[in-house]
């Protein structure tokens, strides 16, 4: 009855220092490699008929989303459940937050349930840090404003590694609205950490000044996707052409100059997108539906990568890792 043993206090992994995943730069290369390895093990376990692992039984995970989200919220919830944790997902739109409760008070309220992990998405930069300071939980940033979305970057790396068998030296072109994209920021930093090559391509007003100093090339010409192994397309939002914004004149002009079409790709290139996609704006429907698209793979990767992140934060270390993902032991 190994399942029961896992619950017994002496068999629980030792208490580890409280760690968070707030920025992708919280990780070193070996951390990323360990996480991707763990994710691969989980992917194998999910091929089994019974997909649930007892690993985090008795642990409490609270997901709190202050912004709408389909794929991130659902994959975090399923990730926690696959690992047998008690998972509570709060959509903070319509909760007491709307009644003017401060984030700090919301965090303290949640802390009363003594969660092991709080996964937070918030429209404001710095929100995860504030929750980290106000609670005793491990914090996972599921997106804070335009700042960071580290689990997205990890699942993107995982997807690339599964596709190409390597990350080192891989060439990734990130196309679109870099300025407003937490995904772009986290991904460029993640690519740097693992030794891949990044180029940011977009309209001048949508590539932040100084972005080249983050360790990537910058171009405003869509033709610069040519040497890339992966063309990573970002969502282009209609807010960017609102009166007083004028980041680009119109979406039509954006599509004409920077839209990712079959004509602008070569046969060996793969296409990724963090979703949700705007067909016909930043990505041509023929590209989104082609075999070059890894968009659905990204969604699948999200589940195992988030399982790996939750697992890693609560256990840490290769010893615990071998013990818990050894299928014979947990069976």
């Amino acid at each position: 009855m190994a399942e029961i043993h896992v619950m017994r206090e002496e068999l629980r992994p030792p208490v580890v220092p409280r760690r968070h995943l707030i920025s992708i730069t919280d990780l070193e290369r070996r951390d990323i490699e360990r996480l991707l390895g763990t994710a691969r093990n989980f992917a194998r376990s999910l091929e089994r008929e019974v997909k649930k692992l007892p690993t985090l039984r008795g642990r409490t995970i609270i997901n709190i989303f202050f912004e709408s989200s389909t794929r991130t919220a659902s994959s975090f919830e399923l990730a926690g459940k696959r690992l047998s944790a008690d998972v509570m997902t709060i959509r903070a739109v319509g909760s007491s937050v709307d009644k003017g409760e401060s984030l700090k008070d919301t965090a303290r309220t949640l802390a009363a349930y003594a969660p092991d992990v709080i996964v937070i998405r918030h429209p404001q930069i710095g929100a995860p840090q504030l929750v980290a300071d106000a609670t005793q939980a491990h914090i996972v940033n599921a997106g804070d404003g335009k700042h960071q979305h580290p689990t997205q970057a990890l699942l993107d790396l995982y997807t690339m590694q599964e596709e190409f068998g390597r990350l080192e030296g891989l060439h990734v072109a990130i196309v679109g609205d870099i300025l407003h994209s937490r995904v772009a920021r986290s991904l460029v930093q993640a690519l740097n950490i693992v030794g891949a090559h990044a180029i940011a391509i977009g309209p001048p007003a949508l590539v932040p000044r100084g972005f080249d100093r983050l360790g990537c090339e910058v171009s405003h010409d869509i033709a610069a996707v040519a040497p890339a192994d992966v063309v990573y397309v970002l969502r282009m939002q209609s807010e960017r052409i609102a009166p007083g914004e004028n980041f680009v004149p119109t979406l039509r002009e954006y599509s004409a100059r920077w839209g990712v079409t079959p004509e602008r790709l070569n046969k060996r290139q793969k296409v990724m997108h963090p979703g949700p996609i705007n067909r016909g704006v930043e990505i041509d429907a023929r590209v989104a539906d082609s075999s070059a698209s890894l968009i659905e793979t990204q969604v699948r990767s999200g589940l195992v990568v988030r399982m790996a992140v939750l697992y890693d934060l609560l256990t840490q270390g290769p010893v615990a890792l071998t013990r818990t993902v050894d299928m014979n032991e947990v069976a």
Partner: protein
Amino acid sequence: MTLHAAAGKKDDLVIRGARVVDPREGIDGELDVVISNGVISALEPTGSGEATRRDVDASGLLLAPAFVDPHVHLRTPGREDEETIASGTAAAAAGGYCQILAMPNTDPVVDSAAVLGALIEYAEQEAVIPVGFMAAISKGLSGEELTEMGALADAGAAAFTDDGKPVVSAGLARRALQYATLTGKRIALHCEDPTLSHYGQMHEGVVSAELGLGPYPSVAESVEVGRDLALAAYESSPIHLMHLSARESVELLRKARLDGIEASAEVTPHHLCLTDEAVRSLDSNLKMNPPLRSEDDRKALIEALREGTISCVATDHAPHARQEKDVPFEAAPFGVIGLETAFAALYSELVEPGVIPLEILLERMSAGPARVFGLPVPKIAIGEPANIVLIDLAANWRVEESRFRSLSQNSWLLGVTLTGEVVMTLADGRVAHRSERVPA
């Protein structure tokens, strides 16, 4: 009368053995300073006078003209939970200040003689040190209609500003400068083109690119500095540029001054000590307007202060309630407090490392701003009112919330150990602050 404080008895005391430094009077030496009925009545070689019951032993301490802050937010009326005239002036006294000027962006705005008159009455009841009040340039700070600048000047306005907001319309800025030639009161400008700062949260640069915080470029300040200098030249009306942050602004100002334009400027301790790198911590006490800029900008500000292009240190003391700063960086209001830490921060960061001489810092914190706004210049000279600060330059102290006299604690220096502690402040002949080290 520009400055107002609660009435009270002037003090009599003898401060013995301090190193007395007054850069403008050319004094630097050990002297006993005799104060009779609030006026400096004698400067004597140390040890020459007989000990009296009103002696203060100041051996080993620095005695200098007390400080003048041309840019303070007192939050009265409207947000007395954040700061009052009483708490703000007490904080100023604890920081070594003998005179301060308060900004008009209160609720209601100081845009009528009635509001100004009420503030002056408050100050005459509760101000620990003399305080002056700037009035708004535009009604309600709306940037649309001029206030009754004549009536406000007659009622005692120290100067005019829409601080907190820029005067977006060049036409209105011009009208204010034209009118100011009648009142003789200076126009002080917060330079920001809102179409360029555009919801900006921090300096546009590598750090904003990395953090994703809304970028607020230097050029948002400097284009308006250029515009306002051109208007000042055209109208031959003096201007004061508030809280400069960017190299480009400093260079425009330097050139304008060489061209004979009467333009003064101020810089804050935080812009002199910090850069946008500090914002990586996402600490909301590092969020201010204008934002912390690059190391190159900081160097330009220090050089301008040293050479006198910028003649004033101003704290831009901006108290905010705890619950307003205890939120994610993006949701926090702009502004930090500074009255109680300004000297120590600048002494620790700039004087001790040898970046600027002590005498220059003392001058820019006292006579510099006093002269710009036509306030009494604090002097260590016989016959002058005692406006004196006594400082222990050897003392190290830790900035802690519990130490502040200010009602707000939103300091960028919390937890930091600084060198240089204000031990005693005399403002207009009265002891306004005395640390526990000086027995009453």
